[in-house]
């Protein structure tokens, strides 16, 4: 399969159906790259015409803004908005809840009205429209728990789309004690991902990993690559990385499909 950039579409004088905003983790982190690949494979397999910005993509500015550095946020955000305007971008799908939130709730203050959707919402829409078909297959009957990301869950109120996708895989979905609006953070948000923890008794991701282990699930499904990285580390800290896998919902759907490309 071929992943095309906006520049390539523009050269052909065409617009894709949607821009896939990959995000920094999805672009650079080895674990998160596999999520980007899985999502691209799904879109490709069901014939959604999408583009990426490629080298023209940049950070949304979320970690800078939440760390307190408004200058860097403004630099990045306004440059991104220029890029969007250059290509006439109207619709964005992203695999990152932090990118989703900032496009949806903060870019409008800077004059950018973008129709942004998170990949789990997008896939759920496609499922309901019948464009995406999900069969249980490999995950049939497996015990799976779902970790709500803060920025899709509590912050943007999206608890069900990811769960509906997981349930479409015919799995045995078990909830952790703290779920939906009570979900516990993985510890990465607010730019914590990019610094050492403040002094304390334990790491937040260890606390969350312990809760996930307690469900007896063999897979922890996530919808955020920050959570993915943190939970993977948490499982390593508990030496459970071989028994319990952390998977993005896009990877699970991809694995359930017959994708040869």
């Amino acid at each position, binding site marked *: 399969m071929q992943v095309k950039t906006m520049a390539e579409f523009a050269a052909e004088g065409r617009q894709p159906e949607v821009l896939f905003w990959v995000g920094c983790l999805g672009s650079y982190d080895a674990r998160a790259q596999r999520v980007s690949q899985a999502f691209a494979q799904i879109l490709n397999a069901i014939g959604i015409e999408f583009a990426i910005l490629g080298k023209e993509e940049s950070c949304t500015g979320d970690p800078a803004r939440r760390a307190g550095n408004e200058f860097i946020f403004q630099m990045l955000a306004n440059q991104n908005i220029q890029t969007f305007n250059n290509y006439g971008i109207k619709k964005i799908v992203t695999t990152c809840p932090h990118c989703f939130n900032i496009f949806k709730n903060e870019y409008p*203050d800077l004059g950018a009205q973008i129709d942004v959707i998170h990949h789990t919402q997008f896939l759920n829409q496609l499922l309901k429209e019948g464009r995406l078909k999900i069969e249980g297959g490999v995950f049939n009957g497996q015990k799976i728990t779902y970790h709500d990301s803060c920025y899709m869950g509590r912050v943007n109120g999206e608890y069900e789309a990811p769960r509906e996708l997981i349930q479409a895989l015919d799995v045995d979905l078990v909830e952790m004690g703290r779920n939906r609006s009570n979900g516990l953070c993985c510890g990465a948000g607010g730019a914590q991902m990019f610094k050492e923890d403040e002094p304390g008794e334990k790491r937040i991701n260890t606390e969350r990993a312990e809760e996930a282990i307690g469900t007896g699930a063999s897979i922890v499904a996530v919808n955020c690559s920050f959570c993915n990285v943190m939970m993977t580390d948490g499982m390593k800290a508990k030496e459970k990385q071989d028994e319990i896998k952390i998977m993005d919902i896009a990877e699970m759907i991809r694995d359930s499909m017959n994708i040869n490309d």
Partner: protein
Amino acid sequence: MNISQILFLIVLVIVFKEAVKRYGRLFRNINLGRDDEPINNKGGFRRMMLIAFGQQKMFKRPIPAVLHLFIYIAFVITQFDLLEQIIDGIFGTHRILSHILGGFYPFMISFIEILSVFAFIATIAFLSRRNLLKVPRLNSKDLIGWAKLDANLILIGEILLIIGIFCLNGADKALESNLPEKYHPTGFFAITSWLGPALFGSLPEYYLNLISGFGWWLHLAVVFGFILYLPTSKHMHILLAFPNTYLSSDNPRGRMPNIESIEAEVKSALGIEMNHTPKETIADFGVHDIFQLTRKNLLEAYSCTECGRCTAVCPANLTGKKLSPRKIMMDVRDRMEEVGRKLDDPDFKSLGGDVDNKIGFNDGKDLFSYIEKEEIRACTSCNACVEACPVLISPLEIILQLRRYEVLTESSGPPDWIPMYNALENNGSPWQMTIERDDWIKELN
């Protein structure tokens, strides 16, 4: 006019004058904050009805919610009693409403009595949760000292209130049943019609009148005491929960306020036109004292009843970090009180020098005299505290503003973030990378 009427009027006037002073001070303190950006609260009335009046968010924790509901309903309905007592006090009457309302009167009093019993049980339960069961969120180190005493004083006050009502009603009922020809019957009261005669029935008239009068004055004394005590107590939430939920914003939770002056600077550097004139505020480079917080932030600090639901779900706090969202709110309030005290002190001299607030107040201290950097640095911005608060307080908004100050004004902050800033500026990603942004597609193509 009898002596009791005169005494009552004197007390009433003193309480009123003192209340105006104390609530005026609180209102002044809230107004030390800056103006909110235009308040966007179209849904405010609905939220006030559901969340303050209807206690919707309390029910995330059902046991305390039900107990709290008993006290809350009893409090609201007892205003009927209070109204009657004030009329009686001024005009020297006794149970004036029983003459006016007929059969509705004993119904109301019965209702109040039954709810008072429930409230009594709830108050005992609350005292036990704090002092015997030691529920963790009510015994954390945030509350050591005054906060803990404050909570217990309020609960003890509630018990005294209820004792007052039952003494008054009980002695009256005993009088009515012992001497029906002398004391006009006021109807059947659900509890005291049997409890009164059972407890006090054997006492002579003189003592019964004494108990009735004692109950009447005790109830009023505690109510007046509460009115004057509230502005210095966490219990202020019984009044401020309403304006606080009403003034809560419709803005999405995930939206941090924009700093328009920085936006304008960056846009001009990039050659982008700004479609409106930037509005500058004193919080453009973050917040370090109460003067840069909004009045809504300060109202929130006074609305906080220190229940600790926020801290109990804070991932940083749960894993042993210093951050406690409740403490942030308490610190803001304490700082407000400190500034207020100094403003009221004729001997206080502002230090002068560079100050960034509208009244030029400078005592060499700020919020960072209360809040350590380590606390605000531990926040993951997960919004659990915001979700948990039963009266729509956002400790997160304040934490993020304090961070802005540390980073933008002090050019400080966690050293780990410096490489992140550099990478963001040079590379457009939080890490300095050697691979390309679209390398991940190579495996697919």
